[in-house]
């Protein structure tokens, strides 16, 4: 286990190193500097500012400086907000994103498990059809459309929840719903397939033959065994939530990293874009590592034995 963990962490570091390097050089190939629009500066002033940002050094030195900074959690200074370190910008925006992302993951997966399980238990009835329709709609309707509709109907028309902004639990409800739709649908689809499989397996037949009640079979055998593989789709679901959060945070004006990422892209704030890319990558790596470890712990059949 320790060896496996060490290997995985080594690959995560390697991945992050490659991503950092790739984004650094990609951004350096970009035309334009922070001073492109300020033609009135004298060459002396420009040189001064270049020096301040470290842009006067040769490329490889800039790269090493940046790499050293990243190791210490320093992603440079934002172009958009003058003198704001990118790491501070990201750090202060992490909370809201993790809150709605986490809420969406929990709500989506739990609701998805219920919908999927009901669909499988009542397979090939109208209940199952309804569950399938819910999951098809959840996978298909883009999060930004859903977010706008929720905002308009539940926020503006019915006034149940605040329309936008950030300030407490009530503010998280609508964004969470908008983000949870896709994990809900994916989990429901996956759960249904798993459970239909499990329900037709031999040990369920045996339990039936021994006269076990339907509730007991489902709760003790079917549900538990179908739940385990669901852990494997948490990684892809996290990617979906990260993707969705970029627009959902924008629509609900939530001060999170998704909103910041889109804003930085639109304003060509390269240091922030690079920093956020690395952060997104690191988050995904950690989620994937945790799910693999958890999977190994809860399912003894596939214990990692390398």
């Amino acid at each position, binding site marked *: 286990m320790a060896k496996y963990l060490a290997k995985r962490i080594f690959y995560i570091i390697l991945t992050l190193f490659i991503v950092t390097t790739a984004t650094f050089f990609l951004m350096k190939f970009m035309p334009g500097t922070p001073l492109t629009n300020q033609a009135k500066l004298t060459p002396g002033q420009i040189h001064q500012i270049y020096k301040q940002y470290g842009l006067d050094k040769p490329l490889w030195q800039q790269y090493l400086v940046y790499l050293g900074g990243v190791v210490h959690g320093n992603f440079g200074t934002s172009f958009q907000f003058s003198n704001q370190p990118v790491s501070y910008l990201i750090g202060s925006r992490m909370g809201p994103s993790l809150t709605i992302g986490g809420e969406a993951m929990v709500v989506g997966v739990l609701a998805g498990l219920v919908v999927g399980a009901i669909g499988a238990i009542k397979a090939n009835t109208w209940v199952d059809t309804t569950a399938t329709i819910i999951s098809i709609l959840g996978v*298909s309707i*883009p999060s930004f459309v859903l977010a706008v509709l929720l905002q308009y109907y539940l926020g503006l028309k019915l006034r149940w929840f605040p329309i936008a902004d950030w300030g407490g639990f009530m503010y998280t409800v609508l964004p969470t719903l908008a983000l949870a739709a896709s994990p809900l649908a994916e989990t429901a689809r996956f759960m249904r397939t798993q459970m239909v499989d499990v329900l037709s397996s031999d040990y369920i037949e045996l339990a039936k033959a021994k006269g076990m009640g339907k509730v007991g079979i489902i709760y003790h055998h079917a549900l538990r065994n179908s739940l385990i593989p669901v852990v494997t789709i948490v990684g892809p679901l996290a990617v979906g939530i990260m993707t969705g959060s970029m627009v959902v945070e924008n629509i609900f004006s939530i001060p999170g990293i998704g909103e910041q990422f889109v804003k930085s892209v639109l304003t060509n704030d390269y240091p922030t874009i690079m920093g956020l890319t690395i952060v997104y990558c690191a988050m995904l790596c950690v989620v994937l590592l945790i799910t693999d470890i958890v999977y190994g712990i809860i399912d003894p059949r596939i214990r990692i034995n390398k």
Partner: protein
Amino acid sequence: MADNAKHISAGDFKPISAEDRGNLDSEKISAPSLTFLQDSWRRFRKNKAAMIALIILIILFILAFGSNLFETHAPNATNPNLANLPPKIPGIDINGFNGTLDQSGQRINAYAQAHAGSKYFILGTDYLGRDLFSRILYGTRISLTIALVASFFDLAVGVVYGVISGWIGGWVDTFMQRIIEILLSIPNLVVIILLMVILKPGMESIIIAIALTSWINMARLIRAQTLELKNQEFVLAARTLGESSIKIGFKHLLPNLSSIIIINLMFTIPTAIFFEAFLSYIGIGVSAPQASLGTLINDGQKNFQFLPYQMWYPAIVLSLLMIAFNILGDGMRDAFDPKSRE
């Protein structure tokens, strides 16, 4: 059983004639043998939802790619005098399709107010007076183009990468898998957005960005399957007979991979359509004045409170595309995947 046996007497048997023997060929197959595609199509046809999805997609394809024939106005022609007109279909007098608007509790005829004369727009106009119907058709065409391109790269890069990685094995496989692992730990959309920042916005950039990311899943699945197929007897037989690797790849591996390829392709397409709409929605995709379903939704949402149709129609078309491709994908999986047969 034993009791029944007693009642059979020798007279119950009679010798078989030579003619009868000819007709009694136990090896004869009475039904015509079906090819893989025929067999799958037969199963696919039984799935009503998937058939409806297929028909909807065919209609959308015809409308979108034949849009020059169907569009009622040029998609990018602006006409400020006729801005924000509601949908109007001549001869239909239902609110929402008769060119009237609800303005502070009163129904007003927006077309008469704008002095539109006999002109009409079946899905209304946007804030610059551009015909929404033609723009939606154009946007659908962009979405479908992206879908086709993404599936092309899925095939061209994903399948080839997977087959090579699985077939050659050894350090080549290890190296190629490491590349995939690294790519998998970066959210696809982040890669696409980074590329969009570097390239100039437009269709070509979206295509490049989606092409660079869409093949990864396909490559993984194909590699796993190739590894399995590689060790089977028919491949060994082909090798023993001296068939070249390339020929084995095309003649023996590809047909056996086809179900996985088709199924996975059907799930690449909605993802690609979503990414394009997403990029255009946040403003780094298709550039103005070109219409994409994403930009149309973004434009429409600004007026959603007063002119809801401007967002509803593009949103419905985009959702319909996604739903149809997803249902079609499910149907294809059931039809092509030998394991999911019931």
